């Protein structure tokens, strides 16, 4: 049950000999298209001709309107759905060729929703991050315990160890889930709407933590977020997705262009550049009048 990676040079724990890794890309899509089975023939693919690379030490935010294909992109990157054309590489290999537990040693994912069916403590939750290293049978050793302690300290949940997770605040619970992902000792963190239910200070705290992990621990982070302004302040790159295609990819000053945003979101937007160089957006008021209706 201890998973083995796909056969080939490098092996599961040392993929550094691979070409794509030497170029720095940990997760990579090349001209990838995903079409779900059962979609009616006329409809466009859920994701079309997407090329994207996420490298170590880089924080990338994926933004775009509802239904733009953000979730599909994540699923393709993680090998959960096959690409009809193009390819998805995780650490230089076809994302779908990795066994789930081997991939989980390199990629930690904090998914959008999670509701434990049974009560568990914070420590128990974080210890589950060791599963990809332990498999079904191996007992945790000192390395596993050290990884759990490190992860809990890093995500600032060490003091919560004996708390039941159902008693945690939204921000604490998200930090626990990040600690669990860190216990996997990954090289990439993928976070799907990590701050959707958090208030201002908890949202900022969480992004500061993520950016710190990227800057100081050399992790790559890929964050899906609806909160474009926060993403713009923290991410090295914004990737704007619309109708299954990447519309723009770059620093916020390049991506957040009023005309483009108005087209993608269907709403007029103004922008403002902050002193730190990042660009913030302001949706314009567009009062609904009886004559014009809501649509432009």
């Amino acid at each position: 049950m201890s998973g083995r990676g796909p056969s080939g040079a490098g092996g599961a724990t040392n993929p550094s000999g691979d070409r794509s890794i030497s170029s720095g890309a940990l997760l990579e899509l090349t001209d990838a298209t995903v079409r779900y089975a059962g979609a009616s023939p006329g409809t466009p693919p859920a994701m079309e001709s997407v090329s994207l690379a996420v490298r170590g030490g880089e924080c990338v935010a994926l933004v775009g309107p509802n239904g733009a294909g953000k979730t599909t992109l994540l699923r393709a990157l993680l090998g959960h759905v096959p690409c009809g054309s193009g390819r998805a590489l995780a650490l230089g290999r076809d994302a779908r060729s990795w066994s789930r537990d081997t991939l989980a040693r390199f990629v930690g994912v904090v998914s959008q929703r999670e509701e434990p069916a049974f009560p568990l403590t914070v420590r128990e939750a974080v210890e589950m991050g060791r599963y990809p290293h332990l498999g079904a049978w191996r007992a945790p050793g000192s390395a596993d315990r050290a990884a759990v302690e490190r992860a809990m300290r890093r995500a600032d949940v060490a003091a919560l160890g004996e708390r039941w997770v159902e008693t945690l605040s939204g921000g604490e619970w998200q930090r626990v889930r990040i600690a669990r992902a860190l216990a996997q000792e990954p090289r990439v963190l993928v976070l799907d709407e990590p701050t959707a239910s958090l208030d201002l200070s908890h949202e900022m705290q969480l992004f500061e933590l993520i950016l710190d992990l990227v800057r100081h621990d050399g992790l790559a982070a890929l964050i899906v977020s609806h909160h474009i302004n926060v993403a713009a302040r923290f991410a090295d790159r914004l990737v704007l997705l619309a109708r299954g295609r990447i519309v723009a990819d770059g620093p916020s000053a390049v991506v957040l262009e009023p005309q483009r945003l108005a087209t993608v979101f269907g709403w007029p937007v103004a922008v403002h550049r902050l002193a730190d160089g990042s660009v913030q957006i302001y949706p314009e008021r567009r009062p609904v009048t009886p004559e014009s209706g809501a649509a432009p």
Partner: protein
Amino acid sequence: MKRPSTPALFVTLAALAVLAAVAGVALGPAGLSPSQLAAALARRGDEVALGIVWSLRLPRVALGFVVGGVLAVAGASLQALVRNPLADPYLLGLSGGAGLGAVLALVSGLISAWVLPAAAFAGALAATLLVYRLALVAGGALDSRVLLLGGVVVGAFAGALVAGILSVSDATQLRTATLWLMGGLGGVGWPGVLVLVVYAVPAMALLVGESRALNLLALGEEPALHLGADVARTKRNTYLAASLLTAASVAAAGIIGFVGLVVPHAIRLLKGHDHRVLLPAAFLLGGAFLVLADALARTVFAPLELPVGVVTAVVGVPFFVVLLRRWTGR
């Protein structure tokens, strides 16, 4: 509440199991004295006492222990699988399906002790597939409440089919099937214990191998996948193993409800939800519980005997109400 340490838990459960076994062997309508019992257990003493102890009471205790243990393990693993603390083989329709499979075999004249569990297994799997189909019809995602509702419906459907089959079958078959359906641990003796153990051991091994993955699955399928669990394999193995365990126990002792619900929860409340501890602990407690329930069933209205399922239901239904309140109160 402070949880007991794992060794303390297992020592206590083992002691309880021994106590239950002693009660199971000592109690009964024949009224053997302690000295007669001790002599018979040492394979001495008179023929009658020897026969009662070795051919009636001991196999009955052994069967009760394995059936109870197996049902509790099946329940515990199903709860993690459908992510609902109210799941058990009975409520998910597995027992009903197994019963239907076994009755079909009985009225077809297939009464071999080895064939019966296989027929029950086929019935349990069919019920499982039907429950899954129902849950998928209800909305794509496998909502655990829909699964439970589907299980109850499929269980009732299987019960109706059994009643229909029995009403058109001939008198001898009717008698065999009805006696068997009522459930009980008295009928099968040592051969029945052997059959059950042979069917149960591989299924239990499969579940023990999945217990860490079941811990992850309790978080949800998506988080489990991200943590490296092979979710599809774990679900398939767990359903197969739980169906096999249920089928083997139904074939040996008829349909006994609530063991799979009550026992895992007692352990969950006491010790938590790590399935590596939960599954073996549930086995011990389930075994002890059913042996005690059976001893009670034999003695409360002695010399008349209650079906053991009556005792488990009398204990189980109030427990279910408490669980329901806790679950919906969250």
